[in-house]
């Protein structure tokens, strides 16, 4: 069953076409990778799904309902959250608060209730903190609970972004280059985490990644973009031997020489 369908998605910036006519079907509870060289339009694609950009044409359907025209926060409320290529944490808030912000849309507390100190609101807040702490433990950041997010090391920041995203209890999680800048050990840990997410949290994962080892290892399905166009799609082993993909990555000569 497809949870997300993307139909003929095109985005133009002025005269520049960032993505053109992309069609994808993402299966529920799968791990899908979107790969391609720099400037292929991958992040633009993510931005359209999360409504940061409005597509020039085409449609995005979540469980059959269109997401086009929604505000970014509405998309999030529908169950799609993401991480960012250039980490976007709330640097001046604590690690725990970052996760609590992730839980924003699921928290039923209201500010009037907060001011009146209603007991059930206090309980909601207390429980939220415990839950957030559990998430921190899950992504291995519990010892930094009270640290400011901006002070974390790079790899930890990446994991916090993932933690914050899963705090929103998404149906679909978009990971934008989660392994960028990580050393092999950290990448291994990340791979484990992503696997774990799918099995434990029942979430569909779409990721953009350059680390081919990681992509080949964890993806169920791969889409390849180049110059804004979808040039290939298939299971990891199919992509591995796809000529156009190798061309896109290594240039035309590479194939000829082989």
């Amino acid at each position, binding site marked *: 069953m497809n949870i997300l369908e993307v139909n003929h998605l095109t985005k133009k*910036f002025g005269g520049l076409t960032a993505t053109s006519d992309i069609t994808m079907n993402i299966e529920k509870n799968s791990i899908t990778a979107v790969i391609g060289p720099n400037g292929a339009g991958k*992040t633009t694609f993510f*931005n359209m799904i999360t409504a*940061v*950009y409005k597509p020039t044409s085409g449609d995005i359907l979540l469980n059959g309902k269109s997401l086009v025209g929604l505000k970014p926060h509405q998309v999030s409320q529908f169950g799609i959250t993401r991480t*960012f290529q250039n980490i976007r944490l709330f640097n001046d808030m604590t690690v725990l608060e970052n996760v609590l912000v992730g839980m924003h849309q699921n928290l039923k507390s209201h500010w009037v209730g907060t001011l009146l100190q209603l007991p059930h609101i206090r309980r909601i807040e207390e429980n939220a903190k415990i839950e957030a702490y559990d998430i921190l433990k899950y992504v291995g950041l519990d010892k930094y609970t009270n640290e400011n997010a901006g002070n974390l090391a790079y790899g930890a920041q990446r994991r916090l972004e993932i933690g914050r995203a899963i705090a929103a209890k998404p149906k679909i999680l978009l990971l934008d280059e989660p392994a960028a800048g990580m050393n092999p050990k950290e990448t291994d840990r990340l791979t484990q985490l992503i696997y774990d997410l799918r099995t434990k949290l029942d979430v569909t994962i779409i990721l953009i990644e350059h680390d081919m080892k990681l992509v080949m290892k964890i993806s169920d399905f791969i889409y390849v973009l180049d110059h804004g166009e979808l040039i290939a799609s298939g299971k990891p082993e199919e992509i591995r031997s796809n000529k156009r993909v190798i061309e896109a990555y290594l240039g035309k000569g590479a194939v000829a020489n082989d």
Partner: protein
Amino acid sequence: MLAHIIQNLPQVLIDGLTLGVVYAVVAIGYTMVYGILELINFAHGDVFMTGSFIGATVLFLFMGMGFLTALPALIVFLIVIIIAGIATGLLGVGIERVAYRPLRRKNAPKLIALITSIGISFVLEDSVRFIAELKTGNYIVTAPSIFNHRFTLSAHDWFPFFNNATFQGSFILVLAVTVVMLVSLDLFVNKTKWGMAMRAVAQDRDTASLMTINVNRVISVTFFIGSALGGATGVLFMIQYGTIDPYIGFILGIKAFTAAVLGGIGNIRGAMFGGVMLGLLEMFAAANLSIITHGAMGAEYKDVFAFIILILVLIFKPEGLFGKAVVEKV
């Protein structure tokens, strides 16, 4: 009602043009700095004010030394405007060094830079007030009047539905000097190596620095030119209106910024256009608002209109009338 408005049009146009070119040149200072640093330099209006005071001081000095009678007024004027321009240019560079560069180095949020610029504007206003008051006992300074010959534009003879309009010698001077300044700035920005470097830095600071452009120096030059133009305009303002005080910079600065936004911030020709347009609009409003509204609203509302224009432009066409829309990078 309409007849009244039309009769007055030549005079309103002349007055609006005078004020408009002043706005235009001050607006350029805002637009240049914004184009390159994305910073609203609140202190720019006060640099303009400081320029007018430096001009007045030099003029008084010359008068004390008897130059004013010995030399033709035009030469005296040119010397004054050049001195004031250079002095304010250096002031602008100094402000950038002291107040903005350290923040840039620290990568501080924009909000902080805005706040320092407000601080600088306060310091300039009060320092000038202090010096003026210490010297004269009153901070409202009246400059010796030159170029106050009166001309009459006999519009009525050519078009009977117009009234005649009058203007002062200084009007021609203001107009001529600003046109010279604007044209040479335009040439500078578009035709010289420094101008190209400036445009490059405005486009993308990081890339420009990779292309061996000394970004800090380009920023300094930008501040120098913007501030020098502002200071020179201060002198023009002093010549045209005769009286200056340390607080002329604030409101005029805001209006000039409005003009810059109107023309599309970061766009030098847009700022010129915006300035002139705002001057004309304002003068038209002051002269005709009560006629149009039958006395319900008078000239005192003209600033409300200026601000409403600002807000409307920012909301509906934030790129200005001449600017291009930018997409934020995610």
